């Protein structure tokens, strides 16, 4: 036990003292925040550029008031000109495009024959804006033709908003589903990132011991299994420290950056809300916020926290012992590639299944199965838990994870024990199988 402690301590200290580790600890949050600011800035820049669109209406259904210029789009009326002239004018003025509404016998025909000419293919949002503009106007004309009273029609419109509550009569917020997805996703994603970053670190550290040839000296004093476990735990501790520092730095730098650049999430979306409407929204939002807060308190927070810890440890140990075995099997990092794919595939699968299946149906068959398979369960189950998972499902999943963990660690330790003393040749899967039977 004392020796294990010594190994953990050495691994931790050598990781933390490493220059790359220090640089990455400081630099990574800066890079992340920097990228965020850059993207925000570029989005804003994109919205700031004004696009001029000319329109040529031959149908006569459209009024100038239908084409309301906005900060990002400017409309020019070319309706007096012929199509050829309008087109050449648009080209010579370098306008964004020309909207051509031809003259046809019926409104329906007009609607299906509208053309948009542009040099570059227009962006989809722009096209759908124009479509709804044309549609709205022509619909009104059609209603007039059919003799419908537009005012009455508008009056008849009702907006429905379904309030959610459970059978106990407790109200809940619709936003909470988003919250649940968010919490689950970030937990699952974090586990994946942690495994990939620090699993690879364990692997490199094993390779380092092999190439520096110190390994035989060490395992004449300690059991290979102790060395492997010490390495895995020591690296995890260094990783946890790094993650914590990243978290703190991200918050600090985030606050500083947003106060300097004034980048707020609302602005990023580029939504301009009229004042009185925003008042209403604020009121709704504060009600909503209270509801969300109440909802969060009702989430299985304790279960979530405990299961995060357990799945985190289980998933990390499972994968990092595989990484350690890979490191032991090879002589240098380039030889690891053939073994890396089978490790990365289940991890990726976990995250993508999580994104795809858990969001649409947290308790569907795909989500349930993947939250049971030990290689994906740490990620997928954590995504499901905020939606409420029966305790026995979690139990089965954990038992499976534990059992697989024990089997894998046993195999990994065997490969590790043999592999660390093997030099020279690049092993094949067949040889690894043979090592397990030694």
């Amino acid at each position, binding site marked *: 036990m004392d020796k294990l402690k010594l190994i953990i301590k050495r691994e931790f200290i050598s990781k933390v003292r490493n220059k790359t580790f220090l640089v990455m600890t400081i630099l990574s949050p800066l890079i992340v925040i920097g990228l965020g600011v850059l993207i925000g800035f570029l989005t804003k820049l994109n919205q700031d550029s004004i696009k001029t669109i000319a329109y040529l209406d031959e149908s006569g259904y459209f009024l100038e008031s239908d084409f309301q210029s906005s900060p990002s789009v400017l409309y020019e009326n070319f309706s007096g000109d012929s199509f050829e002239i309008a087109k050449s004018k648009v080209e010579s003025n370098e306008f964004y495009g020309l909207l051509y509404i031809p003259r046809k016998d019926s409104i329906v025909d007009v609607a299906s024959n509208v053309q948009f000419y542009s040099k570059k293919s227009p962006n989809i949002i722009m096209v759908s804006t124009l479509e709804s503009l044309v549609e709205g106007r022509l619909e009104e004309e059609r209603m007039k033709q059919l003799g419908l009273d537009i005012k009455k029609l508008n009056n008849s419109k009702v907006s429905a908003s379904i309030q959610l509550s459970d059978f106990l009569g407790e109200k809940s917020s619709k936003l909470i589903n988003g919250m649940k997805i968010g919490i689950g996703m970030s937990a699952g994603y974090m586990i994946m990132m942690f495994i990939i970053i620090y699993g690879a670190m364990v692997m490199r550290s094993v390779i380092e011991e092999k190439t520096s*040839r110190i390994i035989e000296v060490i395992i004449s*004093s300690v059991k290979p299994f102790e060395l492997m476990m010490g390495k895995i735990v020591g690296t995890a501790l260094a990783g946890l420290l790094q993650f914590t520092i990243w978290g703190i730095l991200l918050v600090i730098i985030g606050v500083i950056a947003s106060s300097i650049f004034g980048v707020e999430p609302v602005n990023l979306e580029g939504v301009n809300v009229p004042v009185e409407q925003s008042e209403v929204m604020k009121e709704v939002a504060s009600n909503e916020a209270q509801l969300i807060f109440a909802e969060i308190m009702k989430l299985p927070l304790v279960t979530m926290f405990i299961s995060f810890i357990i799945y985190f440890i289980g998933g990390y140990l499972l994968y990092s012992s595989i990484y350690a075995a890979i490191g032991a099997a090879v002589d240098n990092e380039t030889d690891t590639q053939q073994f890396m794919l089978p490790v990365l595939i289940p991890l990726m699968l976990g995250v993508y299944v999580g994104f795809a299946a858990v969001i649409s149906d947290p308790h569907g068959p795909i989500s349930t199965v993947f939250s049971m398979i030990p290689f994906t369960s740490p990620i997928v189950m954590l995504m499901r838990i905020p939606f409420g998972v029966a305790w026995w499902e979690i139990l089965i999943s954990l038992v499976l994870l534990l059992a697989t963990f024990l089997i894998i660690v046993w195999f990994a330790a065997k490969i590790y024990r043999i592999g660390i003393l093997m030099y020279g040749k690049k092993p094949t899967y067949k040889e690894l199988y043979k090592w397990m039977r030694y």
Partner: protein
Amino acid sequence: MSNLLEVRELVKQYGDYTALKNVSINVPQGGVFGLLGPNGAGKTSLIRIINQIILPDSGSIFFNGKELVPGDVHLIGYLPEERGLYKSMKVGEQALYLAQLKGMPKNEAKAQLKYWFDKFEIGDWWNKKVQELSKGMAQKVQFIVTVMHRPKLLIFDEPFSGFDPINANLIKDEILQLRDEGATVIFSTHRMESVEELCEHIALINNSEKILDGKLNVVKQQFKSNLYEVVLKVEQPKQLQKEIEDKFTTQPSNLAINDKELAIKIKIDKNDTSNDLLTFLSSKGELRHFVEMIPSVNDIFIKAVNSHRNG
């Protein structure tokens, strides 16, 4: 004399390949024990099993009369052939870490390290990283790390590789001093002249089997072929040579002589003694040189391995 280490009937297989086939050796308490054998004979497997790095398929090892257990690792110091240190770790920290892994308390380890670092006059390396040291310097640190916990049994696998002659001598003297202080040394090497110099006992492993072991001088007696090298001062060397060649089996000698001398190697019958030969030769002329050709370890090695190979 009691045995510090007794290896009994060790068998080790890697898949279809047999690395050790019923190997038994006894390493007596004190002294230097030479473990010899060609490349791939199974020496490293045997040493690794003694160090409990790998497990034998069958067989047992007794240390000081008791079966060897994992708790005994601190009683053994091992310098592997494939050796190295953490490159980016400081020398002092690293030595301290390895000493603690061997079960030494930190303070004791520090004191021992100071003693050895002073002895080798490398005290100022303490805060250097291993990657800043030359290969020879790193080897010195490695040697210290192997012996600092004062183990009862020291196992050196090619200890002199990587040392220049001066440092190799220094290490040899240290090994002998440790032996004099009571440590038992197992010494595995290909350098036969150092075996000749250091070892009291040897064991020879070839092709996974032990083919020879025992006290070095006894082994030499077994392998001697009753060959004597002589130099005689005579008037007619050619004539005498003919006479001797008729009577005995002979081999040419390479000793430097002048033209009134005869140098020759003479093999005598097992039943004859050296005195018989002496009497015969002294009647023929003035005997200048008379030496029994005791085989070198190198000769024994080659002879034993070849005869084992041919069945």
